[in-house]
């Protein structure tokens, strides 16, 4: 955190932490209530459950893990991009396995599973990648860190 320009002050941060805590609790309650109150089809509850999880995860990464203020640090970002590409590859393999003709022809195999696999396999990693690349393309990602580093070096000298 000390290595970012635009990070808020600690009391501001603590307020943000409380807000994120609230979001996480709310997300869990919503997931829970949906499951016990409504008899949703499996596919729909999968989509809703994973979407809520995705929102919760984004808040944790952005605020709790300070990614919101560290994102200009290109090394972290590229590490994460490569990781998600790996994840996309894993999910892609699964889609490949389930796109096989014999599987699709199976009577008990509902087409919704193929849609779900596609959603997991493409949409999830793709959205991560798109967001990350968008963050990467923000102005002057490297320069933001470099001048500070120079100052640090000067101080050291």
């Amino acid at each position, binding site marked *: 955190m000390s290595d970012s320009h635009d990070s808020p002050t*600690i009391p501001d941060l603590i307020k943000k932490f409380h807000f994120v805590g609230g979001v996480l609790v709310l997300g869990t309650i919503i997931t829970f209530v949906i499951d016990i109150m409504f008899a949703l089809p499996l596919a729909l509850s999968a989509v809703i459950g994973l979407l809520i999880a995705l929102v919760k995860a984004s808040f944790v990464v952005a605020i709790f893990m300070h990614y919101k203020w560290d994102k200009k640090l290109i090394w972290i970002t590229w590490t994460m991009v490569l990781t998600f590409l790996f994840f996309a590859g894993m999910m892609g393999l699964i889609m490949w396995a389930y796109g096989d003709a014999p599987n699709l022809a199976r009577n008990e195999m509902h087409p919704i599973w193929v849609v779900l696999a596609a959603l997991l396999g493409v949409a999830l990693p793709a959205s991560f990648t798109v967001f990350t690349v968008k963050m990467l393309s923000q102005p002057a990602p490297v320069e933001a860190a470099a001048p500070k580093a120079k100052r*640090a070096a000067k101080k050291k000298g």
Partner: protein
Amino acid sequence: MEIPYTVKPRPDTGLYNAKLGIWLFLASEVMLFGALFSSYVLLRVGAEPGTWSMGLMDLYVGAGNTMVLIASSMFVVLAWAELKQGNLAGYKKWKWATIACAVLFLCVKWGYEWPSKFKHYDVWLNNATVLHEKFEKGYHEVASHGDVEKHVEDIYTERFFKEPSEASHAAFDDAWENGTLALSGHINAYEEARIDVRITGWKADAGVSEDEADKALAKQGAKDAAELRQNGGSLSEKTDYDSAKRAEYALGQAGFTVALSVVGYERVEAHPWVWRTKRVTEDIGGKPRVKSIVFGLDHSHHHEITLAAGDIKRLSSYEPKHSTFFGIYYTITGLHAAHVFGGILIMLYNMLPIGLGLWHRDREQFTNRIETFGLFWHFVDLVWIFLFPILYIL
């Protein structure tokens, strides 16, 4: 040797080294858990209808544990914020709260969730007719005012499909007709063999001296060892299987020939941890070790049924070998719990004088250390955020 850039960012990366290190570590963790998650999806989607026991997950416990982990994630970041403000007492307060949450999480997981599954059994029978009979007996209170088959189907549907559908109905009909349904519940007791142990002979040329042989006999509880060795006779009566087998082995080593014979069966209240199919099918001189098990069916108000050993095809508690579902369930939650456990150790280190020493030497470096730990802890929370809907909802 001084490690460079523990506080100041390295010019080329813009990060202090530990932070880059922990992000790289987290990247490798994403790959590890990513592989397991994708395996889960593969297995889930590929599972035959009626084999994925997702209805067995207790949503209330899962949601409660999620809340506990969210709270701990919140506390760990607050602990770091206190350090940023130079407040060590505040750090300790939040850190202890984090540790308490983590311990509570593991207590629920390892003290309640897992053990209650290990005590729960599925029993598959050889014969569909016997299976239907057992259900009739087990659900006799249902049989008096309703349809047992319907009752069993409701339980089956909730466990494997959550909601009734054409697919669930077809899968149930198939399992009911072919008798591939499992009886689910608890082993309340079993009838185990009582065994007489007799010494039938002793080989003097086995390389064991008479003294040693007598000592071995005395160790197994023989009163007149020399007499028993020379003339044979009964060593012990109505003993349990484990002692009998132990005696047979130990005396065999001392050159004796030992005969075990089943003389009767005795009801033993079940110890829930030790049950395996092997124990039911073992035999002693042609007689089964376990004659029958007394089984309490789920949702039957503790009415017991008795299952003869000969009828049992397979018996398994809800342990990893039970099914693919439990295999991947224990793998993923186990790996996650191991991360929580490791986190507790690191947190304790940072709370003890040995870890806190760094605070007194270099406050900023200590603060950074806590921040990097926080990143790891949030990642563990992140994994659970995805695990919760996948395991408990889907």
